[in-house]
């Protein structure tokens, strides 16, 4: 089908206009992806020519590398606790802020403020807040709990990371609060006439109405949690400190170490593809199960 001159000119301009994306896609995404697949099947220190090893890196990662499994397990643990906990806290705070509270703006600001703090600054602040004699343990001391060495004790480091993540539950709070404002008032009026109390109304109206937003935040939160890096890098002990290393290792910092500390470029590339697989599986799983518990308004109509 021949195109008119006008249409051809339009198409030409289209390709010209999208060329930045096309070039970027080829140079910074597709090209690197292909090269990453190849690299993941090589042994390469980035100085001498890569040596083809086939699937050895993957086999080694999955069968012979306890640190990788430890890191993956830690990442799962972190994601599985921090994301739902953050959403629960966010839901709880949003529900409180949705009431007719005096000074709501001030409370909302104080809850949201932590999410504006860049991760590096927040991590550095938490290094002093969670220090053995820091304010967090001081507060625990007031109620008679002697706090652990959050950042040095291998079994507590993960919870330090989770605490930092829950500290910025404000972003979920604000999103959920905005969604709560959109719930039709009639639903609550009807429920009140039927004699349902506030708690019952929360679980039977508020939560079901919010499930699409909760679901969206859950998926995005999990994807982000699987890629946790800066806070781990800044808050947890380094590889040079023996004994504490594996306890707090997570996937992306492990990948980073393999690539940029040990120059195991092929091995690190293989880790990145396994990470991608994990993220993909979880995203698909989340979408597969949505129908069972996510309430979309269109279903009623």
């Amino acid at each position, binding site marked *: 089908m021949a195109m008119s001159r006008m249409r051809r000119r339009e198409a030409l*301009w289209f390709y010209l206009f999208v060329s930045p994306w096309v070039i970027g896609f080829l140079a910074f995404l597709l090209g690197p992806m292909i090269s990453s697949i190849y690299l993941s099947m090589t042994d390469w220190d980035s100085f001498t020519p890569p040596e083809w090893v086939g699937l050895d890196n993957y086999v080694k990662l999955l069968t012979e590398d306890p640190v990788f499994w430890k890191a993956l397990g830690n990442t799962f643990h972190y994601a599985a606790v921090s994301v739902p906990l953050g959403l629960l806290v966010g839901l709880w705070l949003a529900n*409180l802020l949705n009431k007719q*509270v005096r000074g709501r703006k001030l409370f909302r600001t104080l809850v949201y403020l932590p999410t504006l703090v860049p991760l*590096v600054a927040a991590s550095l602040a938490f290094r002093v807040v969670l220090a053995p004699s820091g304010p967090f343990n001081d507060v625990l001391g007031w109620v008679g709990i002697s706090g652990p060495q959050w950042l040095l004790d291998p079994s507590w480091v993960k919870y330090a990371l989770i605490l930092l993540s829950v500290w910025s539950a404000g972003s979920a709070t604000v999103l959920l609060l905005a969604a709560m404002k959109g719930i039709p008032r009639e639903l609550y009026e009807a429920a009140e006439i039927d004699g349902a109390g506030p708690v019952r*109304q929360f679980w039977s109206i508020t939560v079901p109405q919010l499930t699409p937003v909760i679901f969206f935040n859950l998926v995005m939160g999990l994807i982000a949690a699987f890629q946790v890096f800066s806070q781990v890098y800044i808050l947890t002990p380094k590889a040079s400190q023996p004994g504490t290393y594996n306890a707090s290792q997570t996937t992306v910092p492990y990948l980073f170490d393999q690539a940029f500390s040990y120059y195991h470029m092929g091995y690190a590339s293989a880790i*990145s593809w396994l990470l*991608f697989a994990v993220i993909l599986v979880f995203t698909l799983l989340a979408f597969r199960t949505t129908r069972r518990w996510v309430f979309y308004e269109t279903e009623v109509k």
Partner: protein
Amino acid sequence: MATLVSTPAPRQQGEKRRDDEKRASEAPRVLRVFRATPFTYATLIVVSAILSTPLVFAVSIALSSDHTVTTNTFTIFPHEFQWENFTKVFGTDLPMGRFLVNSLVISVGSVIGQMVSSGLVGYAFARLRAPGKNVMFLIVIATMMIPTQITMIPQFILFKDLGWVNTYWPLIVPNFFSNAFNVFLVRQFVSRLPGELDEAAMVDGLGFFGIYRRIMLPMLWPVLIAIGIFTLTYTWGDFMGPLIYLNDESKMPLALGVQYITTTAVAGQPPPWNLVMVGSILLTLPMIAVYYLGQRYLYEMDISGGSAGVK
């Protein structure tokens, strides 16, 4: 309970007020779920206090003397007010000023790159017709699923071969090639704009670039500013990118620089926590300012709040 049945027809202001008054006399004005109890206030106060503690403590440390740092005798609320810490970091022994300038260069470059490229690409996807467009847009959407870790190593090799390690370029240049999420935002925004204006401009003989520059660009500002805010927030706080590419102290942006200071302490000495916290505050304040100045645009774009599901 007739008042509970909503009337679909538009009502007069006065009529509505009378309705509300009637409702007020019949039922409590505030539904029980929305009523704040003393328990609500108590919880909010306690939670706000807990969430604010790290911030208050960071300020307290930033205002502490060096003696307090070495003896590790910090207090949650500031008891010393060493404001000179805020000028000391710009002195000769600490390159905080350098860090700030580096952050600014990288962030401004990235913001300009994203605004220019994503605007053009997003407009083309929304308005221009060409074979293969739909497939290309599907690819744009699909790329959002690829985690950055996949491309991190080959990209590093690429930039290393270009001799760009220890320069700003690896952190700035990719932004001039747009990004899937921003392209998506612009496309959605342009799709909602009325098409008459650019059609009329076309009839008047204005070329496609002319339409973009004269007609579209003035209308695109809200979405471009939103993209600018997102890019600025990301670049300003980015830690992993600078960590990979920059190892020369004089090239580091603030986000990497403040962390770097903590690693350079003399053995056996604690890091200069007061100055590190000053750096963290300097890193945080622009983000708070940007948020408050940009809030209006984000709400206009309707992306910061309710329609999060569209992301």
